[in-house]
């Protein structure tokens, strides 16, 4: 009886140790070469470098999910010293809400060096961004597209975004 109890206890322990973590979130880091579409809650577990052109680096693909920057950075391909050098490309966004509703981006973290907007709320309702630093993006650091509504932009820092003569900039 005692031996059986030990086997049961050992089995339970092995289940606890070997069972995979709940698949409720995705971890990302490293190099992104084509648009990464998020379908679940996601967090950065390391810095991200992005070489995507002609589209966003990261795009939301489902409503009601959150991207946690978790203290890391998302860096586009632009020059670190000059940012965009005066040339902006609207499609080359860092993070796009991509028409999804009630999605959020939470810092701390940095979104930088994209030829378009750092963070773009595109045709979304009830989105939010909080505690994120955006810098040296060629359009706006954070932009709410005219087709988006009920978006909350709170406690972020936008520094050195935009191009001279363009109606964009920090937010």
């Amino acid at each position, binding site marked *: 009886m005692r031996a059986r109890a030990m086997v049961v206890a050992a089995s339970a322990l092995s289940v606890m140790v070997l069972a995979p973590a709940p698949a409720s979130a995705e971890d990302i880091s490293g190099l992104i070469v084509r648009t990464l579409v998020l379908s679940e809650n996601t967090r950065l577990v390391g810095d991200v470098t992005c070489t995507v052109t002609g589209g966003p680096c990261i795009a939301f693909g489902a409503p009601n999910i959150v991207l946690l920057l978790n203290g890391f950075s998302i860096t586009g391909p632009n020059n670190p010293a000059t940012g965009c050098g005066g040339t902006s490309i609207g499609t080359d966004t860092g993070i796009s809400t991509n028409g999804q509703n009630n999605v959020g981006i939470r810092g701390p973290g940095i979104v930088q060096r994209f030829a378009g907007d750092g963070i773009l709320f595109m045709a979304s309702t009830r989105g939010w961004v909080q505690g994120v630093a955006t810098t040296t993006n060629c359009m706006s650091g954070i932009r*709410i597209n005219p087709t988006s509504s009920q978006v909350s932009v709170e406690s972020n*820092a936008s520094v050195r975004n935009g191009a001279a003569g363009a109606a964009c900039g920090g937010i």
Partner: protein
Amino acid sequence: MGSNNFVEANSAIGNSNGIVIFPNANFNQIRQNIAVGNPPIQQSTSVASPPAGGGVDIWDQSPATNNNSFLGNMCLTSVNAPCPSVATGAIPRRPGS
């Protein structure tokens, strides 16, 4: 910017413009942000006066009838927004407080 958005307690410094409200934007609340040094001095002394070619801390491109509101922002230059406004009460609260 679209409609019914909320922009609060952000810092915008050294950008080509600080905070821009698009022509069709309406019923947005812009409050307790710090928007200064837009554009940075190196740029502002070399370009035309705003808004043509230049930049400002807060630029409201919408008509007054669109009901966008500005409250307690710390800023120095603007178009169609209440700047300069440097009241100490405009300092944003800390995140989470």
